[in-house]
């Protein structure tokens, strides 16, 4: 289909090595991208994909190794240099300027000018944008403000922007994570067009069906190392997974002990207008209850309300037989409830402060006499809990922001686990974490449950919910659509409940 001669290679990265604060996140990684080819870059979170792409697009320039573009060695000092060389990225987290129009966003920083340099020609700006949009067969109005667009549309604008720069190489970082099936289909049509024009595309995705639908080649990274690169025809899903994970899936999830009998936590008719309605469930002693569903199903919102971050409009919460009135996280924490948020950086950690300070923050009732911090006790217990959770850091005085995702998550867990908890809420506990740390966190969750702690675990990863729950609640459209005991919790059954809910509406 496609020839494999070296002149077809647009860009080659060889022996790329990159460290953060002494920790190697990339170790001798290679990547060869051909013209007119879609190249899947896969690996667990934390495998080094993003870092590799940041090097490719000029965001990091302190790396070892070489990059050659059409046979010539090249080194991008910054993102602009990479853009000028024809390398664009459509980031996973989009950063449009909401109050500017589509056209202004596309041409930001290089607006067409009138005869007078420095004066923007709005006529040219909108004409050129319209041409671009038409070329891709789209129907957007260039005057539309970005804030009025859906995520998918915003993504398309990013892609238009990449094309408008005459990019030869476009990196798409999980472009479909927020798209519907129809939008994905449409995006793939666009990708095929780009491929036919000879543009090379790096496609980062966790979704295997998409990789097999659109990609020509696959490169797998694991723990910062290059594992292999093969044409898609020589691979199947199992092969890729084995390359990614480096072990069998069955080794990842530890066996669970059966839960205890007494119901510890009870939620009855929890309702918050516009977010969730009439949500009721129970958790037994030592039981892990998984909550599955798609984004926007109201799962995180329920967790936030139980933890006091948002107010409930109706419903009641009982913990160990006591009816709770929770108005703030402080109330929840005092009653022994802890929540590990899906958004570590926003709600979990103070990134500019040390590991020790982060562990100290919610626990001043334990680590202070009056107002004065008991430094010795804090240091001792922080050390113990960090050792127990095997937080990897040269010192507890290191800023939390300098840690890897997995270690950050362990610090979040550590700050709660120095307390005696009665309920632990985990929202996407392994998001953005490498597979090694994942396994450790699963073991920890299992151990906590074995010690009798009831756990509510929200997760969008089906294998995780299925592998780690005694019972799975399926949420959609703000309601619990069904409940599956461990034996019946399969991907098919969960998806069926979700789809059934969508059909009702």
């Amino acid at each position, binding site marked *: 289909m496609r020839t494999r001669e070296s002149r077809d290679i647009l860009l080659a990265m060889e022996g790329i090595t990159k460290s953060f604060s002494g920790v190697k996140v990339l170790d001798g990684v290679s990547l060869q991208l051909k013209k007119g080819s879609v190249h899947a870059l896969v690996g667990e979170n934390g495998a080094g994909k993003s870092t590799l792409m940041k090097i490719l697009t000029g965001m990091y320039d302190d790396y070892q190794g070489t990059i050659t573009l059409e046979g010539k060695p090249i080194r991008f000092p910054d993102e602009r240099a990479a853009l000028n060389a024809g390398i664009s990225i459509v980031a996973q987290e989009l950063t449009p300027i909401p109050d500017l129009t589509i056209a202004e966003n596309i041409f930001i920083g290089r607006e067409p000018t009138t005869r007078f340099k420095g004066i923007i020609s709005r006529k040219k700006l909108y004409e050129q944008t319209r041409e671009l949009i038409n070329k891709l067969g789209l129907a957007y109005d260039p005057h539309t403000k970005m804030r009025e667009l859906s995520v998918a549309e915003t993504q398309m604008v990013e892609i238009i922007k990449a094309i408008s720069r005459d990019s030869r190489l476009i990196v798409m970082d999980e472009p479909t994570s927020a798209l519907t099936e129809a939008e994905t289909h449409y995006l793939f049509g666009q990708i095929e067009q780009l491929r036919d024009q000879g543009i090379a595309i790096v496609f980062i995705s966790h979704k295997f069906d998409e990789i097999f639908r659109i990609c020509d080649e696959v490169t797998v990274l694991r723990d910062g190392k290059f594992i292999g690169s093969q044409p898609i025809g020589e691979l199947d899903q199992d092969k890729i997974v084995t390359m990614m994970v480096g072990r069998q899936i069955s080794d990842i999830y530890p066996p669970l002990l059966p839960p205890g009998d007494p119901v510890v936590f009870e939620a009855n008719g929890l309702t918050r207008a516009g977010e969730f309605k009439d949500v009721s469930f129970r958790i037994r002693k030592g039981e892990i209850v998984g909550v599955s569903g798609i984004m926007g199903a109201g799962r995180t919102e329920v967790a936030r309300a139980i933890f006091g971050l948002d107010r409930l409009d109706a419903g009641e919460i009982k913990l160990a037989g006591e009816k709770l009135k929770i108005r*703030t*996280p402080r109330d929840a924490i005092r009653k022994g409830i802890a929540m590990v948020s899906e958004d570590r950086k926003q709600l979990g950690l103070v990134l*500019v*402060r040390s590991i020790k300070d982060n562990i100290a*923050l919610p626990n001043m009732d334990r680590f202070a006499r009056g107002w*004065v*911090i008991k*430094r010795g006790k804090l240091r001792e217990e922080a050390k113990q809990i960090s050792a127990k959770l095997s937080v990897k850091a040269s010192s507890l005085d290191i800023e939390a922001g300098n840690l890897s995702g997995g270690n950050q998550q362990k610090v979040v867990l550590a700050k709660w686990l120095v307390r005696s908890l009665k309920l632990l809420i985990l929202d996407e506990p392994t998001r953005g974490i490498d597979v090694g740390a994942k396994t450790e966190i699963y073991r920890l969750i299992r151990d906590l449950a074995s010690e009798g702690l009831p756990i509510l675990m929200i997760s969008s990863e089906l294998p995780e919910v299925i592998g780690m729950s005694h019972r799975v609640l399926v949420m959609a459209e703000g309601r619990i659509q069904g409940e599956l005991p461990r034996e019946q919790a399969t991907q098919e059954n969960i998806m069926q409940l979700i789809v059934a809910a969508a059909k009702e509406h």
Partner: protein
Amino acid sequence: MSATVTAEKEAGRDRRTDWKLLYRKYGIVLIFFAIIIISALLNSNFLEPQNLMNIVRQNAVIAILACAQTILIVSGMIDLSAGFVLALAGCLACGVMVNTGSVSAALFTGIAVGGLCGWLNGFLITRFSLQPFIATLAMANVANGITQVYTGGSAISGIKELKYVGQGMVGPIPLPIIIMLFIVLLTWFIMKHTKFGLYIYAIGGNEKATIASGVHVNRTKRLIFLLSGLFVGLAGVVLMARLNSGQPSVGVGKEFDAITAAVVGGTSFNGGIGNVFGTLVGALIVGMINNILNLMNVSTQYQLIIKGLLIAGAVIIDIRTKSAKS
């Protein structure tokens, strides 16, 4: 301090990071000594003990104000009213002194007025979700207005013994320096060793995460403003005592001198980073620069320009060294 020692021992295992850490941590101190050396070379009088003592004495008030701003900036806030509140507190203290003849009543009044204004700032910010910038801007105008009404725009003289607060000596050391050191140490202790201090850093670093950790963030913010207000009030009394009278317009721009000291001393406007010793060093750097320019007979107009450039330079160097990661 034992905690810091252990930390450095731990970091010391890796020789390379050790140096970088040192550089990042103490870059401002290097700049401090560099300025001392350059100043000494430029003018032989600079290193005279009397001159050095003068520098510290003249900047004691700014250093106290800068302690207040440090707490605020570290927690992600700012106080633009400090200069006018300082004038209000100082003038009211002088008024009380003239009327009652009691130094303690005057001191108490000054500090209490500062504290009240600070608390009001905090109240506006937490109760009505005002930006600190806006709330303290409003307070600045109100405080200035009250000061002008109270004093009728002219100085309050005849403050008798109150002047010792600003002019007295403890042995060879001027009292303002003692007060300044006390406030610096108090601020250091609060920020380093109390839960309130931990919350100050945490709120500035990530307010949402601090709320989600069960901290009464609003209450803490009010306390922060109350404490900083008390410092401002004290600074006002010390300043007026040094000037021998209640001067209604002497506070103008002092908040910016204080913010400058804090920022030169490495306090980050992004919040969560900074410490009071850096601020003290920052205040002294600004003071030394003023001093050497005076010694060299540079006219005030040019002093302003040079000071501005040096401040920008110092902060750029500081940022550079801090962002020089691995």
